[in-house]
């Protein structure tokens, strides 16, 4: 994201496209803000904030790990809400479907990062890359569920079919995830091996550490919004290309018939 494409914004009627890419003044501003947020987070997370009393330096990973997890949950929540709106609104506008798809894609990205970084953090604090902790297991489950969702989105068929199928699947995910989380939590409470190796994962954060975490959430939210806006516009452009292709094809077929 270092250099955003400079594009002239003069628009001509349906002449040859003068603007390429999906950037506008607003997204460039948002992108810049996101970059500032990242630099700010890195500076505070790696530099200024103090080490934790018992976790020492590895708490710095949490400033990235926790926000990416929260934003992933937010992304999937947006997907579920957008899917619900698409299904139950009278207009069934495809914009909501594209928002659901874009948000799910960014959610899977963030969830993947959360799992990888979580493993790194687990290695430092728990000494193991993977721990059958209820939260971690549910996170992995959500990751797989939404990869399935993205697969279903690519199944083809008309835009409406894609939209309806994905929306129903997203709402089913809302049904599944609490169920799985609940049963995994019950399952884990059975085998709570309270070894000394496993201090409580949640560090008590205050002062500068809490502030850094807050910066992390802001940075990730800005990134999320920037990514979803661009991804959604790209999907809109792809759909428009299909539709434009449709008009061209109709014209061709009519011509072919004359």
């Amino acid at each position, binding site marked *: 994201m270092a250099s955003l494409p400079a594009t002239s914004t003069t628009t001509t009627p349906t002449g040859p496209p003068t603007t390429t890419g999906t950037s506008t003044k607003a997204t460039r501003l948002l992108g810049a803000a996101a970059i500032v947020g990242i630099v700010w987070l890195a500076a505070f997370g790696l530099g200024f904030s103090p080490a934790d009393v018992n976790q020492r330096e590895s708490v710095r990973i949490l400033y990235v790990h926790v926000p990416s997890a929260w934003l992933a949950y937010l992304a999937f929540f947006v997907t579920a809400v957008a899917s619900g709106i698409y299904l139950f609104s009278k207009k069934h506008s495809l914009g909501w479907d594209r928002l659901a798809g874009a948000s799910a894609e960014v959610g899977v990205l963030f969830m993947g990062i959360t799992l990888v970084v979580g493993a790194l953090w687990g290695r430092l604090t728990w000494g193991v890359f993977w721990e059958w902790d209820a939260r971690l297991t549910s996170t992995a489950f959500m990751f797989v569920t939404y990869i399935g969702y993205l697969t279903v989105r690519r199944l083809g*068929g008309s835009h409406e079919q894609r939209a309806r199928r994905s929306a129903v699947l997203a709402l089913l995910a809302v049904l599944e995830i609490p169920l799985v989380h609940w049963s995994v939590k019950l399952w884990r409470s059975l085998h709570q091996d309270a070894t000394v190796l496993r201090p409580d994962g949640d560090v008590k954060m205050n002062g500068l550490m809490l502030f850094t975490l807050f910066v992390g959430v802001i940075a990730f939210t800005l990134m999320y919004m920037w990514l979803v806006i661009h991804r959604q516009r790209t999907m809109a452009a792809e759909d428009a290309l*299909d*539709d434009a292709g*449709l008009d061209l*094809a*109709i014209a061709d*077929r*009519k011509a072919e018939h004359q």
Partner: protein
Amino acid sequence: MDRPVVELTGAVAVLGSFPALAGASLVVQRGEIVLLRGPNGAGKTTLLRVCAGLLPLARGTGVVLGCDLATERDAVRRRVGLLGHRNGLYLDLSVAENVRFWGATVGATDDEIDAAMDRLGLSGRLAPLPVRRLSAGQQRRTALACLVARRAELWLLDEPHAGLDATGRDELDATLRQAAASGATVMVASHELERAGSLATRCVDVVAGQVVGPR
């Protein structure tokens, strides 16, 4: 004359991003046997699937059996029988079991089901045989018997003569004439121009996703 069974105006239907139907208009009255002629890929099959309420219209309007294709597609589906190259049968079940199953979906009585089997000449030794072991013609007749048992009012047949021998085709024509005579309406998409020509009350050409010739 009561309302036409099928009224399509400027219908556009899309397969993926390809306009299989690009502005087709057509009117079909009750009791007609309409032949849809046209090269492969002209949109005959799509036209049938649109009339059957299966494929939504991307543009244009359509009314089938008094139901609007935009909002009442389920109502259309219940009263229309669409038969493509696949018969929609359960090959492990017998002829009688298939017809009884399809009749039961609309609550048909046993007499109706027996009548449907008789009409298609399936009441004899064929009835208990699993459909898997029947010839193409006998399977086609079983599928038609299921349409009759299901009280379909509009028959949409896609290449029904394909794969049938001479006797099979004659039986099929007889069945279609009988169906039309008893108040059903038939639309046939076919390549067999000379055979279907004699069967149809009207021929319509489908070219490049549009209907040409007498509306």
